[in-house]
């Protein structure tokens, strides 16, 4: 369970650029929840994910993940518990390294890096192959291909696999299909859904595509000015339409 309570964050305090992004953000995500997050630009969606991941440290409030207070825990330390996929497909993988080297790094996520041989073999290699085969992109035969030579969609699929190959307590998907062409985006989204369901992962997925936000996951939240303004789950969420969501947006904008 992820519990965000009374979160506060101001960028550039005391300057002309002062930006109070969170005044009092509260959100509780139950185990196994797959939450889609929508909201206009500047609503604080990505900042929320980055604060949970630890690349931004909040000014106040608390973030508790499965009983651990991670509010100020170092980004590198909390990486053990959190899988993070970014919007930019170039960001989630090491381009100069092989597919299997990338996966091996992800497989050791959160472990100490020792002087043991770091190249996967035996069972571990078989695991990579079966997991890659599940992506259905033919990557299981290209273990020693440099990731930098792959397409954006292939890289993003590998990033997803890397974020989940060691089951994380929380998966963060930050507009992870926004930089892909529509067809590839759909493929990567399907893969994401499959992986989340297979491992029953607690997931936060930020998206600008409202249809996707309705179709995927069991809960939808809308953010506005650093707060959750709309929160639906289950059957009620399934009945939502894009028009209804747009209407909600327009209501907020007029205030």
């Amino acid at each position, binding site marked *: 369970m992820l519990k965000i309570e009374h979160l506060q964050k101001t960028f550039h305090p005391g300057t002309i650029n002062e930006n109070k992004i969170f005044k009092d953000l509260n959100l509780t995500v139950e185990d196994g929840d797959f939450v889609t997050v929508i909201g206009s630009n500047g609503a604080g969606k990505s900042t929320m994910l980055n604060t949970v991941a630890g690349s931004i440290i909040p000014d106040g409030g608390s973030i508790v993940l499965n009983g651990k207070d991670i509010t100020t825990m170092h*980004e590198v330390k909390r990486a053990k518990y959190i899988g*993070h996929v970014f919007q930019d497909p*170039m960001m989630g993988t*090491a381009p100069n390294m092989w597919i299997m*080297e990338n996966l091996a*790094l992800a497989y*050791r996520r959160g472990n100490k*890096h020792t002087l043991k041989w*770091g190249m996967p073999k035996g069972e571990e290699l078989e695991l990579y192959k079966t997991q890659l085969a599940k992506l259905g992109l033919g990557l299981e035969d290209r273990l020693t291909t440099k990731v930098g030579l792959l397409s954006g969609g292939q890289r993003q699929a590998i990033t997803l696999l890397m974020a989940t190959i060691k089951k994380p307590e929380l998966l963060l998907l930050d507009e992870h299909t926004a930089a892909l062409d529509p067809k590839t985006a759909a493929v990567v989204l399907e893969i994401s859904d499959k992986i989340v369901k297979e491992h029953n992962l607690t997931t936060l997925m930020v998206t600008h595509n409202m249809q996707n936000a309705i179709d995927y996951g069991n809960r939808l939240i809308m953010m506005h000015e650093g707060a959750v303004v709309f929160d639906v789950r289950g059957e009620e969420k399934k009945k939502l339409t894009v028009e209804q969501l747009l209407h909600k947006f327009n209501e907020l904008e007029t205030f």
Partner: protein
Amino acid sequence: MIMATIQSGIAQGLLWAILTIGVFLTFRVLDIPDLTIEGTFPLGAAITVVLINNGMNPMLAMLICILAGAVAGLVTGILHTKFAIPAILAGILTQIALYSVNIRIMSDKATVALSADSFKTMITDLFPAGTSPNTISIVVGLVMCFIIIELLYYFFGTELGCAVRATGSNQKMARALGISTDTMINLCLAVSNALVALAGSLIAQFDYGSALVNMGQGTIVIGLASVIIGEVIFVRKERNFGFKMAAVSAGAIIYRTIIALALTLPWMKATDLKLITAVIVAFALAIPAWQAKTGRKKNSKKAAKEVE
């Protein structure tokens, strides 16, 4: 005459190869051109020569110089990672600081000659009397390079080594996977500078016979030139890490041999060395662009033929 020149070029090149591997680690693995080495190279020489002259066992003196090199690299690393000083500037700061440190080590002298039995003397005693110094240098250089490449090849295949390479390739990703990128950068800078200090130590003993306070000048350019020459000539397709290190070592040998041959030309002066260096480096840097152009021409000819 020419054979002797080539031989001395190879002998020198094999010692400079150790420096080149150090440059390769920062420039290619971390993607940082580390200028600290212009200070660590004479540091290695100064420590070794002064300690040996004071009666220390040469092997122990070299071990201390390797450690001192690692510490110098760590200083640059800490300036860069903990105090967010850009890597190039951090390297320059350590480098100029080392200039003063080196002069203190050398007791305010610009040159300190070796006056006691060095590692070279120890090794020479193992060979039959009358073996040429070049042959000895070549054997020592080959053995050293082999050991260093083997060790580094193993290291960069371990979990820790993979974490260092991941840091150089994509820092944001590395952090998201729980890799402490600061530690990895510091580690790589320390290893690189330790190698450069060792190169300074060996070159002082086997080539110069002394430590010079200015011997570090231009070493980064020489190192980069050797890396690029080695890559352009030998690394034409995807190769493993060990092969790449061997290739840049060969680059150092080729660079030294060209310099040695150029200096035998009757109208060349020793002071033209820097000019020759600049020409070789510019040439080596231009080769990839030139290859791309000729490659395009060949391809378009091929395509034209296919159309016909």
